[in-house]
């Protein structure tokens, strides 16, 4: 049952900020963007401002994550914004900061640090290095010195052993992860923006695909893409001015549990997506439980991360994974937990998960290409297995 949150009063974000606008560039395969990364960022921000019905010059804050290369001061100068009041970067790599950036933007407008914050992410991997390749260095120091000489370099290799241990502990079958992949590809077939639109996936295709790193096959791994996405956040009292059904931020949380980044894979709670402490904090602030969630976007760097995320957010027990993780569970509109309804990182676009935030908002507006019927609670889980991770919940007007 949805409640008014944890009663923290002033010390809560619940209902204090609203998503006013969403914007994206077209999504491309990696290296295929005709535009530079900075130009992609500008285009997405202008699209989000247009969607919100605001003048882009009124943007006074920028929030991003994962060391986005597009500096807010340069963006503000290029856009000719009147002034810059909030310039925010969530530390940590991967997509773990996607929901935290929403939370940071919401916190800024809720507390008067800024009036109009854009959350953005832009990637042009043709212009810069790819994620999924080891770097060509002669020597290496620090934590990676304990890993790279043994051939452990890419994100998939960094996280596969967490998943392998989880599968061992709970006797998880590969079919559970296949269901996550099937859901993303199924939903991408309805979404013309999706890079994998027109490229359906069968269970046989999945089973026949090559190993990337056991326990993960090709279709367990996200794409790498070029593009940009942006979301405009305003204080909640501006909700009446926006030209859409409002999506209120009910809560956001970020972080990780005890010694998550202990070197050489010494995280005590190893077989984990790293949400064991973060998920309860989100639910507490939002006044929501897992059974209230109408639709879920859960960041797929790798399907096994989605699996552990869903468990840690209380949608099923770890012992129930083989039973719960069926494609039908995750298909919109009628599945028990409609998942990644735009196609997500696997099949729409790897925009570092910001496209998942946008899809969560579309669901509340009623404009998804795989629409769930009249959702009130739309949740996003960002960047499993990295640290810090983050998550957020958007609510319809009825939840406020």
């Amino acid at each position, binding site marked *: 049952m949805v409640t008014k949150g944890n009663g923290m009063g002033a010390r809560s974000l619940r209902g204090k900020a609203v998503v006013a606008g969403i914007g994206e560039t077209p999504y491309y395969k990696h290296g295929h963007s005709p535009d530079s990364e900075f130009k992609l960022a500008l285009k997405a921000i202008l699209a989000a401002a247009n969607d919100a019905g605001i003048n882009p010059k009124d943007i006074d804050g920028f929030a991003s994550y994962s060391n986005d290369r597009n500096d807010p001061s340069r963006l503000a100068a290029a856009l000719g914004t009147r002034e810059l009041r909030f310039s925010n970067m969530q530390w940590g790599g991967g997509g773990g900061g996607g929901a935290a950036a929403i939370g940071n933007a919401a916190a800024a407008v809720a507390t008067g640090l800024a009036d109009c914050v854009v959350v953005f992410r832009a990637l042009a991997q043709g212009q810069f290095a790819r994620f999924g*390749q080891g770097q060509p260095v002669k020597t290496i120091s620090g934590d990676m010195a304990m890993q790279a000489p*043994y051939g452990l370099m890419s994100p998939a290799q960094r996280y596969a052993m967490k998943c392998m241990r989880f599968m061992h502990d709970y006797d998880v079958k590969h079919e559970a992860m296949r269901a996550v992949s099937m859901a993303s590809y199924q939903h991408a077939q309805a979404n013309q923006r999706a890079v994998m639109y027109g490229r359906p996936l069968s269970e046989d295709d999945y089973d026949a695909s090559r190993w*990337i790193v056991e326990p993960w096959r090709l279709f367990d791994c996200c794409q790498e893409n070029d593009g940009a996405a942006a979301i405009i956040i305003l204080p909640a009292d501006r909700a009446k001015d926006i030209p859409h059904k409002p999506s209120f931020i009910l809560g956001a949380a970020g972080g990780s549990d005890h010694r998550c980044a202990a070197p050489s894979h010494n995280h005590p709670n190893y077989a984990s997506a790293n949400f064991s402490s973060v998920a309860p904090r989100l639910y507490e602030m939002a006044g929501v439980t897992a059974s209230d969630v109408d639709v879920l976007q859960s960041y797929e760097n790798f399907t096994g991360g989605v699996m552990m995320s869903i468990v840690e957010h209380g949608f099923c027990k770890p012992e129930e994974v083989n039973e719960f993780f069926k494609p039908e569970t995750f298909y919109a509109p009628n599945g028990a937990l409609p998942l990644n309804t735009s196609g997500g990182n696997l099949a729409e676009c790897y925009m570092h998960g910001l496209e998942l935030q946008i899809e969560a908002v579309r669901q509340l507006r009623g404009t998804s290409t795989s629409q769930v019927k009249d959702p009130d609670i739309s949740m996003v889980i960002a960047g499993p297995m990295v640290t810090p991770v983050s998550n957020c919940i958007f609510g319809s007007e009825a939840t406020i």
Partner: protein
Amino acid sequence: MSVGYLPEGLPIPVPENDNLSKPYWDGLMQERLMVQRCKSCNTWIWGPEWICHACHSFDLEWQEIEGLGQIYSWERPWHPVHSALKGHGPYLIVLVELPHAGNIRMIGNLLGRPEQEVTIGAKVKIAFEHHKDADPPHTLAQWKLI
């Protein structure tokens, strides 16, 4: 011709410029497995750090331990992500837990056939893999089934 489990050309481990992990890498070249332990509260520390995460003492010592452990998790990479691995085929990475040293974990390759079945919990011991002709020379800590 590689002297090691994996082809030559992967990044070579060297201590940080503050030398935090130097005793570990020097120890491996002498076939000694060195890890850190807090002199104040006896907590085992791995990987190397300047402070004890349990009691905040900076008084840590390097202690030699027996290279014995059990497989905590594993993975088998197939897709090469580094030019040195192109055309090499699959290989095995194991995460080894050391129960006699506070259950700290270390990463290495599991020697033997890359296609072998791997069992979590299997007992392993260390195998020092010397790269004496590399520049700079170094030794990796590999693992083999007992």
